[in-house]
């Protein structure tokens, strides 16, 4: 299967995780993707790491390499007149612009979306920001962590051992808001391209990272809209009391909704005497008496490793899973069999295993035929080769910090 987006041209501006990951989804499927970084220090993720041997090097940041496979990298400052002209020129022939600058930045560069669309009516512009292009929080400062809370997911993240009155709502580390909004943005861009096939016209798409997360709390939100009721965190925890049960060497989680699954589970435990008690007879009763049930289950789990419980449980058709650590995930045979890993050339002569994109068969990503670009690596190729800038001018642009 050849590269699906081989005839698409994408341009990415903004750095971080969201815009680059969105662009990666196109780059890894063959789109010609030009990544624009600020001259000087480039994309801030270059300093995020992780680094081999913890030795910081802007060309060896693991996260940067993962996010920026298969892209051409240029440096450009569009706030400078020549920079603006070069970006405008680049966008005239692009299909997709993915940008995550603060709202209003494109306009401040003299490149408001409506002008870009006037010059290139088929252009699809997708803007990804914490709170979108409009609204009272438009200019609010945010991180992925604060967005997790602003979207109500902090209150949705539960643990079975809540000290309800004491514990704060949980955060999730890393970049879930950025990844979720990046995927939403890429999907929306494709929807716009589908429409463009019929109408010839492009689009400006406004993606809010907050909304990308709020969207996943839709069930409880709709329940609230009818019943005016918020499910207390304690209740959420109780309903998930078989989540993250300690075992001999870590934790396991199980979901047992149906009676036949419960019976299979009991077989696993060797049909203990206590299982015949009336209070454990059905789902309803077990929920009521969860405080009595859990210690009994723990008697068994504490005697077995997560791997034993996982394999024996699944053999009995119980939906049980181990809480794998990052180390265990990296060694998980199922992921190996699924070809879920990609080799990233991060340092000279050194490649490291990172995650591959999640589609299989037809929509198959290319392997990383281009490692993530060094800062300004393709300046000459793009500015001179594509945009007709002479080598002398390139030097002047560099000295003037336009590139």
């Amino acid at each position: 299967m050849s590269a699906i987006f081989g005839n698409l041209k994408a341009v990415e501006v903004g750095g971080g995780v969201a815009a680059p990951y969105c662009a990666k989804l196109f780059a890894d499927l063959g789109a010609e993707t030009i990544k624009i970084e600020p001259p000087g220090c480039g994309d801030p993720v270059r300093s995020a790491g992780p680094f081999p041997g913890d030795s910081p090097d802007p060309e060896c940041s693991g996260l940067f390499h993962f996010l920026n496979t298969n892209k051409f990298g240029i440096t450009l400052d569009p706030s400078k007149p020549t920079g603006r002209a070069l970006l405008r020129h680049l966008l005239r022939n692009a299909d997709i612009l993915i940008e995550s600058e603060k709202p209003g930045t494109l306009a401040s560069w003299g490149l408001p979306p409506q002008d870009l669309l006037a010059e290139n009516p088929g252009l699809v512009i997708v803007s990804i920001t914490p709170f979108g292009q409009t609204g009272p929080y438009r200019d609010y400062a945010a991180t992925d962590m604060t967005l997790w809370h602003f979207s109500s997911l902090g209150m949705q993240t539960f643990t079975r051992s809540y000290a309800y009155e004491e514990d704060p709502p949980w955060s999730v580390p890393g970049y879930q808001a950025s990844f979720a909004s990046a995927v939403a943005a890429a999907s929306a861009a494709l929807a716009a391209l589908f429409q463009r096939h019929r109408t010839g016209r492009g689009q400006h798409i406004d993606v809010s990272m907050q909304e990308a997360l709020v969207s996943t709390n839709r069930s409880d939100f709709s329940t609230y809209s009818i019943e005016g009721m918020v499910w207390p965190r304690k209740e959420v925890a109780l309903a998930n009391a078989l989540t993250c049960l300690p075992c001999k060497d870590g934790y396991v989680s199980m979901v047992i909704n149906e009676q036949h699954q419960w019976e299979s589970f009991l077989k696993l435990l060797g049909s203990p005497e206590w299982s015949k008690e009336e209070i454990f007879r059905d789902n309803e009763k077990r929920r009521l008496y969860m405080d009595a049930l859990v210690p009994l289950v723990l008697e068994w789990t504490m005697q077995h490793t997560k791997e034993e419980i996982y394999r024996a449980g699944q053999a009995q058709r119980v939906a049980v899973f181990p809480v794998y650590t990052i180390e265990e995930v990296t060694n998980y045979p199922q992921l190996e069999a699924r070809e879920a890993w990609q080799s990233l050339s991060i340092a000279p002569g050194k490649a490291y295993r990172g995650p591959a994109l999640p589609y299989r068969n037809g929509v198959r990503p290319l392997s990383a035929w281009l490692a993530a670009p060094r800062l300004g690596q393709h300046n000459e190729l793009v500015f001179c080769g594509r945009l007709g800038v002479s080598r002398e001018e390139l030097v002047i642009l560099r000295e003037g910090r336009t590139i």
Partner: protein
Amino acid sequence: MQPLVGLRVADFSRVLAGPYATLHLALWGAEVIRIESTRRMDMSRRGLGGRVPAHVMGQVRSAEGFVTTGFVAVNINKRSCRLDLTKAKARELGKQLIQLSDVVTENMGPGTLERLGMGYEELRSIKPDLIYVSLSGLGRTGPDSGYIAYGNSLQHVTGLTSLLGYPNGTPASPAYWADWTAGMNAVFAILAAVYHREETGEGQLIDISMLETVTPTLAEEILDYSMNRRCAQPRGNRDPRHVPQGVYRCAQDTWVAVSVTTDAQWKALCGVLGLQDPIIIEADSARRERLHDELDRRIATWAAERTAADAVEVLQGAGVPSAISYDVAGLSQDPHLRQRGFFITVPFRGGGTIEICGVPAKFALGQGTPEYRNAPTLGEHDDYVFNQLLGLDRETTAQLVSEGVIY
């Protein structure tokens, strides 16, 4: 006009991951037809959230006494027809519908549709350019592909939950997270396949595992292990790069999240807190990390004197990343989401309305006013699908109903 007008999806998927994907398609204008049955009813109709009585939904049949709000939240703007796929005639009708569709979506477990003669290989022989999207917990291939994998249990095998909670504490868990990530990623995969088909006329099978839609979000941790054999551990609400960071109790049982990412933001926060000690104000990230417990106490003291909403107003005024840690009531009252029109009001036939979260992505140009229809009752569109689309006459469909084919 919405972007995906003209695309038709035969949706065999149930519960969360698949329906969340097809919700996006429906809201963007695609015609999504759920193929369901009374025999094996989608459990989310009955078991996800509060109950909406049948007379309010405006139900047509008696099989459903009620529908749950979680179902409505994921299935507005879709249609529903009934087919008992255990019957050969039903499978035949299903195939006829698929021939008129662009995309088939399913999450019935690897092998299920194949056993019914409706797997990809079979279907592509009657419709070569079909796009067939198969969602499962662990994928259709690999040694564990036959495992029982619901999203809220398998998310733990992704490594994500090992990063959550307090150090040495019980792992925390974001409910159904793997379902949502699978749904989001499926939208992209479906539309990428549609793009490919527009260019080449080729269809394809897409095999998405929920597991693999979570692991890319852990790239940083996975690479740190690959490079440095460091296995990331939970850190509570802290982050070594953003210091201080935490979630602090405010007045009236509210909580504020604060995340300082630069020295400038730290100085601004010091101003808000009224901290005067120059050593603390000038403290760099490493020093602040050593003082984290003390800084948490200072922030907590300040936070306790005001509501989270007031705290955020002040903090944002000073340029400090911060958030109210909302519950769904807070979301509903959020002025920003309201002004952006993120919540969709959908009427019930029997009176009253329900609010649904939209999907992220606002298309600025040429959308017109989208029309919103409530989630379909079971088989609500039998007439549309069998009589209009497939061209059966009413006697035939009545016969099929009595035979339990349309059931």
